[in-house]
């Protein structure tokens, strides 16, 4: 246990070294301060941004879009994915189409969204939900299609109803896949939220950093990037914790 903590501290120290190096490079103007503000100016910009309330407002907007889009997409993805995954004919007919759509860049749908909804909040939310749908949908289809066949036999031997089979056997069995898909969907949500904000100039971190770049306010830009990194980190960790809790039963040996 002590060894683990020791290594953890050492790695944080290494991270600190990188920050010091960043500061040295910035202070010595090895790279122009227009492009690379040091951690000191970035930190000041962060503090300033929160003090004036601007960064908080942007952060909340981005988080809200991301979460709402993600939740909608996850719900739709799980329900649709379950229906398709449980039905062999559905898998046969829809599978190839889904496989074709899997590598499609989610952002390619943005122009379509703009065409339909204009540069509005609805467009951004719609694009987020649509883009975030696919990882969860595909993972759910896979999870439901890959349920251990012996368990279906067990359920037949016990005389379980179809609904009971789906709820008590197929769904729990698919949960690892579903959660993995939802994790990917969350990443996609964040990306599309940022891009959507950049394009539609809605209030949010995405538009915030774009404006900062255009007006050459590098510290504000970097502060926003750091915040977005932090957002990505917290959401990923949150989902990992949820997975660990829900999937306690996985073989630890």
């Amino acid at each position, binding site marked *: 246990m002590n060894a683990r903590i020791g290594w953890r501290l050492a790695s944080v120290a290494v991270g600190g070294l990188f920050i010091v190096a960043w500061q040295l490079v910035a202070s010595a103007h090895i790279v122009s301060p227009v492009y690379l503000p040091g951690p000191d100016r970035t930190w000041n910009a962060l503090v300033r941004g929160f003090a004036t309330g601007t960064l908080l407002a942007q952060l909340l907007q981005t988080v809200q879009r991301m979460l709402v889009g993600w939740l909608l997409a996850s719900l739709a993805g799980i329900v649709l994915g379950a229906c398709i995954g449980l039905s062999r004919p559905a898998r046969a007919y829809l599978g190839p189409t889904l496989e074709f759509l899997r590598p499609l860049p989610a952002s390619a749908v943005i122009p379509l969204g703009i065409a339909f909804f204009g540069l509005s909040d609805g467009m951004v939310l719609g694009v987020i939900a649509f883009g975030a749908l696919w990882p969860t949908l595909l993972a759910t289809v896979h999870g439901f299609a890959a349920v251990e066949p*012996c*368990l279906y036999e067990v359920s037949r031997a016990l005389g379980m109803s179809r609904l009971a089979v789906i709820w008590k056997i197929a769904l729990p069995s698919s949960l690892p896949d579903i959660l993995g898909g939802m994790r990917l969907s969350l990443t996609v949500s964040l990306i599309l939220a940022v891009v959507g904000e950049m394009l539609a100039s809605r209030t949010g971190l995405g538009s915030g950093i774009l404006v900062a770049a255009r007006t050459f306010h590098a510290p504000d830009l970097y502060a926003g990037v750091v915040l977005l990194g932090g957002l990505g980190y917290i959401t990923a960790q949150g989902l990992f914790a949820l997975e660990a809790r829900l999937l306690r*039963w996985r073989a630890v040996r």
Partner: protein
Amino acid sequence: MDSQPLIAFDRVSMTLGGTSILTDIDLRIDAGDFVCVVGPSGCGKTTLLRLLGGLLEPTAGEVRYAGKRVAEPRADIAVMFQDYGRALLPWRTVAGNVSLALEALNVPKEQRPARIAAVLATVGLGARADRYPSELSGGMQQRLQIARCLAQEPKVLLMDEPFGALDAMTRQTLQDEVLSIVAASGATVFFVTHDLEEAVYLGNRVIGLLPHPGRIASDVNVALPRPRNQLTTREDPEFARLRRHLFDFIKDADA
């Protein structure tokens, strides 16, 4: 002595995917019998078990339980699967896995904890009720399957090579446990195994199947005294005679 057998296979044939697995099987099993089914691979012994369990429908003939045709799985016939790793729900605890059988039977919620505790005590898993299957050894996982079957309070137990994947010591322990459980509950047992000695040790009747076509080629009574004992029973001359008989039977099958 009942004139009506509990289980009857009446000229049962089974063809799967164009291949004939079983041909014209006639078999009567009385209540309280411990029937062991042996035979070389491909002889159809697992198919026979699945027909009895209602998991398959015969291509010809009829499988009857208590006089009525078996068309689907029944609550009083419990099935124990060969691959315990795949037949248990990994996301439910030991107690949860047993509970599954009770839920399927629509046993009221209040009655479940007591029944689960009782059945876990019988198989010796009482202290591990909150563990997950991944935390159990092979022998314990198989006991969990037994517990789930017992929770149904079955009149018939179908066991498909349940101890094949276990080490010899665990196998012997579980053999004796099954014998005592069955003696206590009075259930009829249909036990498929490839282990000839196990078949003689456990059963009061051993059925030998031969493949191509799948048919019953031997049906012997095992008159060894109960309760069985791993040492004394296996040293009994009658045990050796039956074992030799089955050995020859299997060897002839290869010829």
